[in-house]
């Protein structure tokens, strides 16, 4: 009987020691706190480059518009192409999915509103004052026709431009499916 108690006590004691050692090891190896607000890299000044070349042009967010993202700025640029616009839109949607977990939904104006910050995180990869957004809140292609957003699922949005003839579902339409030809993000 005494022997059974001795064995039980030893096993229990060993269990406690192992548990305490595990907790101790875990807490000791835990990474130190790295607050997000302190992770921003320092801005590199011209003198820090160590050369005579001019400093690289770095676009920074305006302080009075913290949600603004330059991601969509090339969209519809006069020196761009519709293929480039589609790539920009793909990046905008991909960026939105990364932040919100799924595509925006609805018709053009509803999608634009969500891309411009009307979402639970106020994330705005598409600035609300983007030059390609018309007075009705719709995003226009480079020929002035609203893009047509076709939601296939939460992560796949087919985008269609009516093309130069400005009529949807004609041979000159340009169609792109963001995410279809790349790894899931």
């Amino acid at each position, binding site marked *: 009987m005494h022997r059974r108690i001795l064995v039980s006590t030893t096993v229990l004691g060993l269990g406690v020691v192992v548990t305490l050692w595990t907790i101790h090891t875990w*807490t000791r190896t*835990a*990474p*130190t*706190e*790295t607050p997000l607000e302190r992770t921003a890299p320092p801005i590199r000044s011209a003198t820090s480059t160590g050369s005579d070349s001019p400093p690289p042009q770095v676009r920074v967010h305006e302080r009075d518009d913290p949600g603004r993202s330059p991601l969509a700025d090339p969209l519809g640029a006069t020196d761009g192409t519709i293929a480039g616009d589609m790539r920009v839109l793909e990046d905008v949607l991909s960026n939105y999915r990364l932040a919100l977990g*799924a*595509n925006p*939904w*609805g*018709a053009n104006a509803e999608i634009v509103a969500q891309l411009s910050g009307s979402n639970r995180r106020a994330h705005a990869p598409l600035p609300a004052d983007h030059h390609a957004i018309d007075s009705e809140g719709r995003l226009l292609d480079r020929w002035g026709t609203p893009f*047509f957003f*076709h*939601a*296939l*699922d*939460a992560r*796949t949005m087919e985008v269609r431009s009516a093309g130069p003839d400005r*009529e*949807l*579902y004609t041979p000159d339409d340009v169609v792109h499916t963001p995410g279809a030809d790349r790894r899931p993000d």
Partner: protein
Amino acid sequence: MNTATRNLSRRAFLKRGACAALGTTGLLSTLAQLRVLAAGVSGQSAFSVSSGDYKALVCVFLYGGNDANNLVVPYEQQAYDNYARSRSILALPRSDVLPISPLGGGSYAFHPAATGLQTLFNERRLAVLANVGTLIAPVTRADYRSGSAALPAQLFSHSDQSVQWQMALPDSSRKIGWGGRVADLMASLNENEQISMAVSLAGINTWQAGNQTVVYPVSHDGVVGIDMLEREWVDPVRKDAFTGLLELERRNLFERSIAGSTSRTIENNRLIAAALDQTPPPNTPFPETELGRQLRMIARLARIGPTLGFRRQIFFASMGGWDTHDGQIDAHSELVGELAAAFLAFNRATVEYGIEDKATVFTASDFGRTFSTNGKGSDHGWGNHHLVMGGAVQGGRIFGRFPELIVNGPDDTGQGRWIPTTSVDQYSATLARWFGVDASNLPELFPNLGNFASSDLGFMS
């Protein structure tokens, strides 16, 4: 991050994990208990069924989002004029549509290609459910516009909305269909539990997937056998060797499970094929279309269901091509014609087989389509009209509230997307009750049902 924060996170993690585990097992365990109850208690069972009965529930899913705005059209002159004005290029001429006079009043018409549906409606074998859609709780236009409404995730997205329709759980990510949940609950009623009661003519789908229920796919020509065993030219020695391998004693659980399920599949195929061989195809002609062929096989399988020991079976069929963004007038007409002809043939076949009262067919679709046009088609909508057919249906009526066909009117989110006034949960629960699920079990099957005024829409007798 300090130690206290880390420990708190671990506790939170464990707590959340426990909650998640409880959440995911809750429905499963309750359904399992209900099944035991059903098997063990007769007379006062969890189901409203008597012995010897048989019922088949047939889902016809219209993939892509059917434009039911043109399937059921207002016929009264003033209402038709409003329809024609707003629908613009998509409006069907009043002289072409097929008028119906619902028993509850009103004046409507079917699409010109829907002659079969008009016949069935007039014979009171078909009912229309107006403006049904995925909802968590009732939504008003004001709620929607202000952003204060609880909405299903990813409205207007094909994949998400088809899955939500089939789940009747718009706020859940679990891919368990309401047909599968009903099957989980009722499988023990069947004498034959070896063959799944969930038979699909259109492949694997969410609607029939349950916690225990698995989908049994069948082609419109019959069971799909294991290729090597079916071909006459394969050496009989090899066939024997294959079946012999399946009968070997195995220690590995996975291998044993695979061998067991393969053996069951072979046996099930033989059973069903033999039963089909003994039951001639219906004399009723079916259209040689994809849906026609699917419904013909479903009619035959429903006929032999009781012979195989079934008292309840659920069937799944589907049609694609309803995503009519362009060229809608012609494409939709063809689709509606195929649907209507197949429905009429199925009804006539069930009459021929004497099982008309035992087989109920209902439609489902991703969503409705916008009332306004985007060129020659329509965009993704929300609320949609649906069809229910069978001898047990209170046919010749339109159930639910028909939306006011006014863009930016009281039923519109904007752009002619009707806010559903009947939820998929209510629609599904009414069908589930007819199938034999007791009212007390409905909240477990349809957790959001209590958010709506009625759990029985009254379209089933």
